[in-house]
């Protein structure tokens, strides 16, 4: 069989025929033609991917282990290999540590807060509010499609210390509001508040979709068994929403770790670097022309994104061992009645 198939091109030495048999079959004219066609089909994507994704990723990896700076623009290969020195510079830089702490603060407070608020709104829209629900949906989604620059101007007005709306309202209750964006304590909470408001809309839509998959029958049955609203939420709605929660957690986590626009337009990282995020520091470092160090920082941030995603999957993800934990959850619900 192999003899007929190889008849076209060069004859192999007899000794190798046996070991080469599978390879010969693989390069049959038909297969070859097919694989050429396949590569042809895939080529447009492959070319775009290699040029615009793989190449930049590889070159940034290359940059992160060299001492490349802006003066090396004309001959980027004439730089010195410095190994992991950039990474140790980054990790021991107090400014980077500060930025990492700020980013962590933002993520740890911001992500759960966004998910909770979005979930509450989605539940309210799904069950409670039937009238005007379209209006509310539009209202909550609006911030997502609004330009951050326009939003920033409005929020700066709201947060103004003397005649901003927020402090005005606080004043009615006799509370002297702080200088939100000018205080090292309150600048970050202000930005978290704004980001939660901005990213709420997407999650509300996702949760609303997820809520459609919660079986009505279960709710009715457990209501008959005497489960109150809270018990039904905990034991029926939340477990069913688990995959949706995972998705929400992952995309919000990734988005929040790359926290950049808010400090960029609102505080420029101030006051006293209290809102400087890692992404903002990377932007600045690239701006200063320290491409090597900035690339190393980007990889540290990338590692953090991967880590957070893994944690998300561990905490919220579907367990592989059958529907074990989930079923138990249901059973426990039954037991509670």
């Amino acid at each position, binding site marked *: 069989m192999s003899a007929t198939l190889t008849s076209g091109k060069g004859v192999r030495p007899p000794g190798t025929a046996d070991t080469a048999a599978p390879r010969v079959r693989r390069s049959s004219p038909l297969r070859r033609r097919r694989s050429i066609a396949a590569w042809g089909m895939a080529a447009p994507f492959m070319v775009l991917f290699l040029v615009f994704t793989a190449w930049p990723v590889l070159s940034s990896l*290359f940059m992160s282990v*060299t001492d490349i*700076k*802006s*003066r*090396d*623009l*004309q001959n*980027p*290969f*004439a*730089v*010195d*290999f410095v190994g992991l020195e950039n990474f140790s510079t980054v990790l021991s830089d107090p400014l980077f540590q500060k930025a990492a702490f700020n980013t962590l603060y933002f993520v740890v407070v911001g992500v759960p807060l966004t998910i909770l608020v979005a979930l509450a709104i989605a539940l309210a829209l799904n069950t409670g509010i039937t009238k005007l629900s379209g209006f509310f949906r539009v209202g909550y989604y609006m911030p997502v499609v609004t330009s951050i620059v326009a939003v920033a101007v409005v929020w*700066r007005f709201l947060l*103004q*210390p003397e005649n901003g709306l927020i402090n005005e309202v606080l004043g009615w209750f006799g509370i002297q509001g702080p*200088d939100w*964006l*000018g205080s090292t304590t309150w600048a970050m909470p202000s930005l978290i508040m704004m980001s939660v408001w901005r990213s709420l809309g997407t999650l509300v839509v996702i949760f609303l979709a997820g809520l459609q998959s919660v079986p009505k029958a279960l709710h009715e049955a457990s209501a008959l068994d005497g489960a109150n609203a809270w018990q039904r939420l905990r034991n029926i709605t939340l477990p069913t929403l688990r995959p949706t929660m995972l998705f929400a957690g992952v995309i919000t986590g990734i988005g929040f770790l790359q926290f950049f626009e808010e400090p960029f337009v609102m505080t*420029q990282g*101030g*006051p*006293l*670097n209290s809102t400087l995020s890692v992404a903002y520091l990377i932007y*600045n470092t690239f*701006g*200063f*022309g*320290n491409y090597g160090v900035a690339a190393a920082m980007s990889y540290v941030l990338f590692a953090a994104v991967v880590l957070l995603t893994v944690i998300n999957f561990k905490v919220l993800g579907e367990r592989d061992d059958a529907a074990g934990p989930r079923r138990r959850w249901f059973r426990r619900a039954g037991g509670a009645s």
Partner: protein
Amino acid sequence: MRRTARISVAALAVTTLALTACGRGDDTATEDATAAAVDTSELSGNVTVWAMGTEGEALGEFAEAFTEENPDVTIDVTAVPWDAAHDKIATAIAADEVPDVSMIGTTWMGEFATSGGLDPTPPDLIDESTFFPGAWGSTEVGGTSYAVPWYVETRVLYVDTALAEQAGVSPTPATWDDLLATSKGMQTAGAQWGISLQAGQTGAWQTFLPFAWQAGAEIMNSDQTEFTFDSPEFVKALTFYQSFFNEGVAPKELPEGTLEPDFVAGKIGAFQSGPWHIGILDETGGEGFVDTVTLAPLPADEKQASFIGGSNLAVFKSAENRDAAWAFVQWLSEPEVQADWYAQTSDLPAVQSAWESGDLASDERLAVFGEQMTTAQAPPAIPTWEQIANVIDTELEKVCKTGMDPQEAATAIQQQAESIGTGL
């Protein structure tokens, strides 16, 4: 399996090759800094020019006067937005696809000159002595000039005349003590803040450095090899600057966009800024408001000093039409042309003799800028300057807002500047 193994071996080989291939040569860009002569006798061809902002819009039409004199030359101006300009020029140098001439912000000079993209200024064509010394200083990187100053701006003091009169203090403080007295006086006369000085954040160094220079501090030693932030003069300036905040004369936080309305409303007695504020104040306070404002040169301590900014014109090393490019740059720095350019755009001329005629000579307010220009200084044109300026902004903010010890701040700036290096 075998295929993947083969691919990984290949990848490894390529990477090793790439890594062994790299490594710095010994020649730095600043070394071969001898300028070749320019032959301006027969000019022809096309000169492409990049310019930013208002300059980019106005230059095309303005250059027609040059092409009338040199009919064989065409000037092709591309307007580049300021936001994109830095990256566009950097990319152009990297790809070696440069225009002939570009406008360059003064603080970018160090970076672009050391990248080897700019052509050293031919001394036989351009006469250094016709420019303000501060402006010329901004073109020099490692002792060689890589551009020609085009227009300049400098900082002076804007004082509310009525408030100063009411308080019985001089609106033109001559010394540091006078400045403090004027600010305090205006505050007692009813202003919420005696003076507004930027307390940190982006660009605060431009407000602070004049004080340092006035105290006699220098940022680097004369041959630009070492930083000298850790000097008693620098600490003295920091201490003086801090006193405005410690004594509650200047606001630690001034929400963005409130300076002008507050100044117009008499809540702020004085501030330090550049020529553009004449227009802004007229816009905020109504036509003619500026007449109620006194423009004063910055006070002196050991000496007079201010900050000089503006833009330079540089010719690229790989310019296709080098002779005509330099001729065009030279033409733009002729005194009459500079005066015409001022009439067109209100850009203050970098050439001293352009100030001797017309509006520039007769306008009182402009005269203050002209006078200040003679003592204005530029930060060192080193590639790492933006990064060091950012360090100054951060430490200055700590000094103003948290009461950090000025000596400590100076030491911190010095240490960080040393670890950043000059980049030359």
